[in-house]
């Protein structure tokens, strides 16, 4: 570390230049990320109507079962989405990286993430069309006689999870694929030379080596999923509320910013706990 740093320190540059380089970004982050967060924290301690500081916004969350139920729902949905997406995406990424001929890989990967580029609001809406009572899936299923009555697919938690999984399978395929490609083939060869079968090679060599990539992807999935409003709002049919919906309801229906702030901070606290749990895999380092 010290040796490298010695090499980096520039004798001719004064102290001013490095600070001039990093200050704009730091200032931006302080002004438009840290300061808003403080403002939100203070706001969460005020009352919607009336004056003075109060913790009533927080106590509401913990005493009103329908409020914390939203957090329970959010955690359940996020956990299901994260696990299902990883389980679906890992084999897919592996097939792309191992089974598809090298020169087709880029194209195959491009195709796999193409729907990424549909607008995010529209993507959820498309799933509503697919899953509707008279939608494509139900028409097909009743048409070929698999089921007699159309299935209730839209407006359920299943629909919300499907919408989420669709997006995160693409995201995770990207991260896991990149991870698998970084593995040197020599590892596998070495494992084989030592007498390990393909299953053992996978379990003891490939999986541990790709775990960091999986964790990064899983964490991204967690953060993006738990904070998302659109997907449950369009696909869930309001048969249950998730945290972001509860937050938006306070703003949209009542303009109650203090309560919305408090709920956001609670949500943020949960994400922070998740972050700490995965922190060791999430370091950003220079190549």
């Amino acid at each position, binding site marked *: 570390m010290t040796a490298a740093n010695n090499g*980096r320190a520039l004798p001719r540059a004064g102290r001013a230049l490095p600070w001039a*380089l990093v200050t704009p970004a730091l200032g931006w982050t302080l002004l438009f990320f840290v300061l808003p967060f403080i*403002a939100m924290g203070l706001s969460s301690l005020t009352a919607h109507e009336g004056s003075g500081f109060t913790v009533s916004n927080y106590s509401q969350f913990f005493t009103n079962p329908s409020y914390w139920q939203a957090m329970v729902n959010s955690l359940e949905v996020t956990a299901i989405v994260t696990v299902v997406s990883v389980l679906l995406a890992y084999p897919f990424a592996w097939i792309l990286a191992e089974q598809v001929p090298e020169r087709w890989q880029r194209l195959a990967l491009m195709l796999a993430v193409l729907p990424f580029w549909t607008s995010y609001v529209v993507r959820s809406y498309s799933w509503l069309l*697919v899953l509707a009572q008279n939608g494509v899936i139900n028409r097909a299923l009743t048409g070929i006689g698999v089921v007699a009555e159309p299935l209730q697919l839209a407006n359920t938690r299943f629909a919300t999870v499907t919408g989420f999984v669709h997006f995160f399978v693409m995201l995770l395929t990207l991260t896991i694929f990149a991870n698998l490609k970084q593995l040197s083939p020599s590892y596998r060869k070495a494992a084989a030379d030592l007498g390990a079968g393909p299953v053992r090679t996978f379990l003891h060599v490939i999986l541990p080596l790709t775990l960091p990539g999986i964790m990064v992807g899983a964490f991204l999935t967690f953060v993006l999923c738990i904070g998302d409003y659109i997907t449950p709002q369009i696909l869930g049919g309001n048969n249950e509320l998730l945290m972001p919906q509860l937050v938006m309801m306070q703003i949209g229906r009542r303009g109650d910013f203090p309560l919305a702030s408090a709920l956001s901070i609670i949500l943020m606290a949960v994400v922070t706990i998740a972050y700490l749990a995965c922190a060791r895999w999430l370091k950003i380092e220079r190549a």
Partner: protein
Amino acid sequence: MRRIVRIVSWLYALAVYGFIFLPVVVLVLFSLQSTSFPIPPFTGPSLRWYDVVLSDTRLTSALVNSLLVASISSLAAVTLGFLSAWGFARFVLPGSGLLRGLITLPLTVSYLIIGMGLLVLFNWAGVPKSLLAAGIGHVVINLPLCFAIIYSQMGDHQINIERAARDLGAPEWKVLLLITVPVMAPAIFAGFFLSMTFSWDEFVISFLLTRFDTTLPVEIWNLLRSGLNPKTNAVGSLVFAVSIVLVVLFELTLLRRRKA
């Protein structure tokens, strides 16, 4: 054994491709619907709803707004990200690890919370809602991304080229413009492109921070809430088409760079 793995692999991959493409195919197919409901039976093909979308000035101006916000905020994010990455990679700064952590911190926070915070702050400070306010939010989410990408690509290899230039007497700004930027171009470009993508598709921050001039995702949301019709399919398909063109352009420029 190998053959079985191969066959199962192909079937699995096909199934996942099917899952991934199902909503897109349905979206595009029913954008060509000639009647007012985007559900089976298919009554098209008809370009009726594309006509409606292209003559809707709110949608077209939202599209222009989105492009403006995305390009300007991405430019700001990539500039700030690049300068700070360079500063942190090349110089010893006290508390460097902590400060880098601070810059990347927004990556771990939901957009909803970033939007809420800015809304509360701007509200208190009396800053009106506008596209610029949404753009500020987009820089907040994209700056850490640009920083992380560029910082992670600043290897010792580039340091050596820079040092050679300095040894030859080049002033610092010349090193930056003539050496660092060109060498780092792929990372800078990747950061810019990713920022564009995220900003182009971002909903909740724009929703919370804009007034009547808004971005395309918010306008699509309004459209969606104003009634069910294939217009939403048409605008979604158009956005998809535009994005694909951009992705292909990006791929081509990247490939050309690689060959060069």
